[in-house]
């Protein structure tokens, strides 16, 4: 299988010009070839569907949706590469009505 690495990199939010992508493309070919055995997996049986449902029982025990104290804003912002006026600072995303 051949990969459009630039497209895959964009989907992955990696730099499409990253020189590492060439080697990674070769690795990906062999890994995807290997995991291709999964295409022969038979469908779930009804017993397996029931087992999956049972194994999920009790999951998602959510907290009550109530307001409670959270992290101090300053301590969170302190970890950011840049911040201004109590907010995370990022480059301009929309300029003159055009998304960059």
């Amino acid at each position: 299988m051949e990969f459009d690495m630039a497209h895959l990199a964009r989907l992955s939010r990696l730099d499409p010009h990253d020189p590492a992508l060439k080697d990674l493309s070769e690795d990906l070919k062999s890994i995807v070839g290997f995991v291709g055995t999964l295409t022969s997996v038979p469908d779930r049986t009804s017993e397996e569907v029931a087992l999956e449902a049972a194994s999920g029982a009790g999951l998602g025990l959510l907290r009550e949706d109530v307001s409670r104290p959270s992290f101090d804003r300053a301590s969170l912002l302190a970890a950011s590469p840049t911040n201004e006026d109590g907010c995370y600072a990022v480059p301009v995303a929309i300029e003159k009505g055009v998304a960059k």
Partner: protein
Amino acid sequence: MNRSEGPEDLCRIDALALAGLLKLREVSSVEATRAFLDRIARYDGTVGAFLHVRTEDALKDAESAQRTLDAAASGGPEAPAFCGVPVALKDNLSTKGIPTTCASKMLEGYLPPYDATAVERVKASGAVVLGKLNMDEFAMGSSNENSSVKPVRNPWDATRVPGGSSGGSAAAAAAGFAAFTLGSDTGGSIRLPAAFCGVVGLKPTYRSVSRYGLVAFSSSLDQIGPLTRSVADAESVFGLLAGRDPHDATSVDRPATASATRGVKGLRVGIPREFLTDAVQPEVRDTVRRAAAWLSAEGATCVECALPAVDYWIPAYYVVSSAEASSNLARFDGVRYGHRAGTYDSIASMYSRSRSEGFGAEVKRRILLGTFVLSAGYHDAYYGSAQKARAHIRAGFEGVFRDHDVLLSPVAPQTAFRLGEKSGDPLQMYLQDICTVGASLAGIPALSVPAGFDGEGLPIGLQLTGPAFSENVLFAAAGCIERSAGCLGRFPDLDRAVASAKGA
């Protein structure tokens, strides 16, 4: 401890024994902490287990712990279980005000504003945190060669890998750099390094330990667990960690049950024949058979059995874990924390350049694989099929556990391999996880226990796997192997490790 013994001995006894000495005030927490710090200073330049050592702060914490111990001895409130015991933590566990980098350039210098629940619980037990431990970047790897900082070397032979991804945690426990350590296991990341380094490592049942504050790799698989020098320590530390946490909606309250005095009489042990083939190192196969004889001698029944769907284990694991990783690691974009690229011309290029500069090759490989298997046109064929395989694997274990209480197998096909031996071939590296990923996909507990040494003096670890929430059975079986194998109390010669690293 006899007072005539040196401080190095404090680094060799297990955590429960050290906790006992501290409570009896045979030794002070400051003495113990200093002994571990001295050992780290002397040998970790070779081993590379630590990414951050809290020398001054650990000594201050030890002084505080000692005040608690002194107060308890004077009739005050009882000191908590591990009061004053020096421990260390894998660097993907969030630690308030202590660097947490996941061994990645992406998180260089990051100071979290909160503690993971597991860290809170360890601190509440009175333990003194010595520092943070090296690992494969974002817990992706089986040899600890993927750390962006430095590889970890195996204390038993410094030319060998310690296993991954919790390689720093295993090496530190084996080398006597901490009384116990915490690691995380997604597909074998506690068990494999525990086996390669000759320590006990537990991957608990999924849901039994809160994942809050564990930097997420694959959320349906990740679990935090202990790496220790004895089975009793592993059981005791698991008891601290387990239990419901409101911060993790998947966590449940299933209190660990005591098993220290429980034997293995009547235990039905299955030995999967899939892991006794010629592909497995003969000494590892022999050790499985020897352990079966030890268990039988104490009243267990051991028979060979078959595990269904083993051919799907590795493919399903790498598809599911990479898919989840591609989603979980999307949060690292240079905005709220972590590395931001120096130059970019738009917000989109800031994201992509920050990520390409911050992540190492293995992390990029898995993000790309995960993105591919989730992409339009391929989702059903790969991710959908992996989920079907996971259902077959879970059902397969369910069937096996109708006839067996516990499974006994190797942890890996061979003992620790040489640094660089497999790092050029990702697929060969992934195959290291062949014996461990099944329990991860099924969400069931599995434990690695030292069971012998090969002809080159490298530790051999065996894996015990049981149904969900059967950790007490695993501890009982592991206790039998520990008693019979004679590995307890054996330590690597670190001076030899230093010499071999220099010669490598």
